[in-house]
C-alpha cells in the first residue's frame, strides 16, 4: 500500500471508495448477549485482528495472503484462533458477580514467532501467548505415541525422538494473570513503548505493571477522595504515549485530559499538562457534563496529537496546546435535541471509541443505526457509512448515508426519528498500514477495504 493513497480515504473525485469485504458472526436476528463484540484490535502489523465479546471469548482472525489468480482481491481475514479468555466469577465477599465481558484487548509488539496480547475484563488482566505448532515429537523412549508409559521390560533399545510434521495447530495459553489490583472496573489497558510495562486504569486509579510480574503493581494515579461523597469525577480512559515511555494521558468524565510524566514523581497526582476546552454557555443543558464526558482517548501514531471522543464529537488535540483542540468533528450533532430521551434510555452513557488511520490523516468513530463516521483531517471532509447486511455483497461499494437534520427530508436521507438506537457501533479499528477497517456492529464484525480502481 503506498502512503500517498492513504491521504485520500473518501469517496468522490478520483479517490477510491470503501467497499465491503467480509462479515463475521451469525446472521440471526436473535442476538445472544454473549456474542456481542466488546472490543476490536489489529496487531502492529495488521496481520492479525482480535475481537473480544461479552461472553469472555477472544477470536483472532488472520490475514490470508492474496491469491495469485484473483489479484483484484486482497486477502481476507479468517479465523486463526478462538479461546475463552475470561470466565464469569463470583466474588463471595462482596456478593458480586464479575462479568466475563472482555473490556479491552491490546497486542504486544511481536518479538518472536509467537504473538502476545493482553485481555481484560472488569477486574483481571491476562497475558496470552498465541503460538503455532506444526510439528510434534515422536519416538520417545518411555512413552508410546498416546503418551502412556511404556512397560519398562519392553524397552530394549534406546531411540532418538524425531520431529514429525502435523496439521497446523494454533495454541493460546495464558502466560500471566494480573489480578486483585483494581477495586473499580477496568476501562483501559495500554502497553508502554518500552515493551516491558503497561498501565491499567479503572474509574479512580491507574496502575503500572511489569509484564513479567503479576503480584505487584505501582499505583501511579489515584483520584479517590477521602470522602466518597465528594466524588464528582472519574477516570474514563488512559493511554501510554506511543514513543515516550514516561508519558501517559488519562481522560475524565468532566471532559478533561491530563498528561502525566512518570519522571516527575512516582505518584502522578500532579499532571504535567491539562487539556480542556472552555464550555460554551449557549449550549449548556442538564446533560452538558454527561455529553462532555470522554469515552476514549488515542494518541496519533506520530505521538504529536491525541484524539478524544465525547458523546457528540471527536476532538484532535495538539499535545503542545492545552486550551482547546486543534480540530473538532461533529459525529451526530442531530442528537443534541434528543438528549433527554437518550438520557432516559441510557444511550447517553454509551462509550464510543475512536481510531486513527495508519498515517494519522483520517479518523473513524461510530454512531447509531449501524452508522460509522470518517473524517479526513486534510480536506475536512466527512462521510457517514453503514455496516449492514444489505450492502454486504462482495465488493459492493458503500453508499454514503445522510441523516436529515430538520426541514424536509430529501430522498435517500434518513430522519433522526427513524434511527435505530439499539444498533450502535462502539468499537472500530483501522489497519495500521492499509486502508482496511474492522467495524463491530453488535454481534457482527464487518471488514471493509478500499476499492482499487
Amino acid at each position, binding site marked *: 500500500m503506498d502512503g500517498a493513497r492513504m491521504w485520500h480515504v473518501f469517496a468522490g473525485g478520483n479517490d477510491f471508495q470503501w467497499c465491503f469485504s467480509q462479515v463475521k458472526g451469525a446472521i440471526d436476528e436473535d442476538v445472544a448477549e454473549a456474542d456481542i463484540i466488546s472490543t476490536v484490535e489489529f496487531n502492529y502489523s495488521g496481520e492479525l485482528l482480535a475481537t473480544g465479546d461479552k461472553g469472555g471469548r477472544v477470536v483472532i482472525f488472520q490475514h490470508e495472503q492474496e491469491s495469485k489468480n484473483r489479484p483484484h482481491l486482497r486477502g481476507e481475514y479468517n479465523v486463526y484462533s478462538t479461546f475463552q479468555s475470561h470466565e464469569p466469577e463470583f466474588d463471595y*465477599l*462482596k*456478593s*458480586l458477580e464479575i462479568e466475563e465481558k472482555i473490556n479491552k484487548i491490546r497486542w504486544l509488539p511481536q518479538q518472536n514467532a509467537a504473538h502476545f496480547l493482553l485481555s481484560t475484563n472488569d*477486574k483481571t488482566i491476562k497475558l496470552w501467548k498465541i503460538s503455532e505448532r506444526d510439528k510434534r515429537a515422536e519416538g520417545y523412549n518411555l512413552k508410546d505415541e498416546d503418551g502412556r508409559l511404556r512397560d519398562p521390560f519392553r524397552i530394549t533399545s534406546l531411540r532418538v525422538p524425531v520431529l514429525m510434521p502435523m496439521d497446523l495447530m494454533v495454541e493460546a495459553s495464558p502466560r500471566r494473570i494480573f*489480578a*486483585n*489490583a*483494581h*477495586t*473499580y*472496573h477496568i476501562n483501559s489497558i495500554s502497553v508502554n513503548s518500552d515493551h516491558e510495562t503497561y498501565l491499567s486504569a479503572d*474509574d*479512580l486509579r491507574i*496502575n503500572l505493571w511489569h509484564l513479567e510480574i*503479576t*503480584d*505487584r503493581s*505501582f*499505583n501511579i494515579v489515584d*483520584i479517590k*477522595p*477521602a*470522602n*466518597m*461523597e*465528594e*466524588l*464528582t*469525577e*472519574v477516570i*474514563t480512559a488512559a493511554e501510554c504515549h506511543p514513543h515516550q515511555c514516561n508519558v501517559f494521558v488519562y481522560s*475524565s*468524565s*468532566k*471532559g*478533561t485530559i491530563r498528561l502525566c510524566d512518570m519522571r516527575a514523581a*512516582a*505518584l502522578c*497526582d500532579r499532571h504535567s499538562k491539562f487539556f*480542556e476546552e*472552555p*464550555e*460554551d*454557555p*449557549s449550549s*449548556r*443543558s*442538564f*446533560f*452538558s*457534563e*454527561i455529553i*462532555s*464526558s470522554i469515552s476514549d482517548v488515542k494518541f496519533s501514531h506520530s505521538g504529536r496529537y491525541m484524539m478524544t471522543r465525547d458523546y457528540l464529537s471527536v476532538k484532535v488535540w495538539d499535545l503542545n496546546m492545552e486550551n482547546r483542540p486543534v480540530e473538532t468533528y461533529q459525529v451526530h450533532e442531530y442528537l443534541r435535541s434528543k438528549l*433527554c430521551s437518550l*438520557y*432516559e434510555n*441510557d444511550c447517553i*452513557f454509551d462509550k464510543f471509541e475512536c481510531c486513527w488511520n495508519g498515517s494519522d490523516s483520517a479518523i473513524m468513530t461510530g454512531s447509531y443505526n449501524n452508522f460509522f463516521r470518517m473524517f479526513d483531517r486534510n480536506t475536512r471532509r466527512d462521510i457517514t457509512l453503514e455496516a449492514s447486511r444489505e450492502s454486504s455483497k462482495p465488493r459492493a461499494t458503500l453508499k454514503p448515508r445522510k441523516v436529515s437534520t430538520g426541514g424536509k427530508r430529501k430522498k435517500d436521507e434518513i430522519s433522526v426519528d427513524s434511527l435505530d438506537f439499539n444498533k450502535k457501533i462502539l468499537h472500530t479499528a483501522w489497519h495500521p498500514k492499509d486502508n482496511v477497517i474492522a467495524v463491530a456492529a453488535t454481534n457482527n464484525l464487518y471488514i471493509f477495504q478500499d476499492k482499487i480502481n
Partner: protein
Amino acid sequence: MLGNGVKRKLDDGEDGLEEVVRPLAVGGMSQASFTLQRQTVLNMSLMKLYGPRMGADLGLQRRVLINNIIRRIHDDFRQEGGVGAFFFSAAPPVAAAATCEDESYRQPPPPPSSFSILPSSLSGLTALDSCLTPASLLEEDMPMPPSPSPKDSFSSALEEIEELCPSSSLESRLEKPPPPAPPPLPPSPSSAGSFLTDFALDDVLFTDIDTSMYDLGPCPAPSGAPPSKMAPVMMADDLVRTMSGYGSAGPGAQNQPFKMDLAELDHIMEVLVGS
C-alpha cells in the same frame, strides 16, 4: 485538582451569574417547560439511582454523572428557594435501614501512602457497589476513621443497628451513648440551620407534600461541590439532622415521634457510613 473540578467558563468573571442563565431556557424555552423538563430529568435521575431495576449493575461512572445532575438541579432549587428544594432534600433515608442487610463488608483501607505497591492479595477485596445508600454507593473502599472498637466495622455496625431497630422508643434512644463522632459537615459556609430558617419550616410543609415518589431511597448528598465556585449545597443528612434536633434544636424538640424516627435513622446512617 480532580474531585472538585468545575468546568471553566468562557468568561471566568461570570461566576456569580452562571446560574441565572438557565440551561435550555436559552433556546427560547418557556419557564414552565423548563421547570417541567427539570422535574422530568430529576425524576429520571432518581429512578436511575434508586429505582428497582437499577442498582448494582450501575457503574461508578454513571452514578457519578447522574449524581452530578441531581446536584445541579438541587442547586437550582436552592437558588430559587422553592419548596422543591426542601422536599427534594428531605427525601427520607428509609432505604438506609431497609437495605442495611445489603451493606457490604468493607475492608480496611490500603495505606494512604502516596506511592503504594499494591499487594495482590489485599487489594480488590473491597466492598461492592450494590448498596443503595448514597454514602455506601460511592464508598467502595473508603478509609475507615480510627474507631475505638476493636471489632471490624461491619459487625459492630450490625450490632448497633440490631440494638437500635427493635425499639424506637425515646428511652432506648436516650440511653444509648451519643454517636462517637458527628459526621464531618460539608465545607458549607452556611449551616443547615440557617437554610431552614429561610423557609419558615412547619409541619404543614411536610403534610402537604407527597414525597412518596421519592421513597425509593435517599437522595444523594451533594457535598462535593466546591465552595468557591458553586453556591453552598444542602445535604440530606444535614436536613435530617436539623429536623431531628441533632444539631441546633433544643432537647424538647426530640419529644415528637416523627422527629425521633429521623434521629434514629440518622444514627443508623452514621453507623453504616462509619463516620
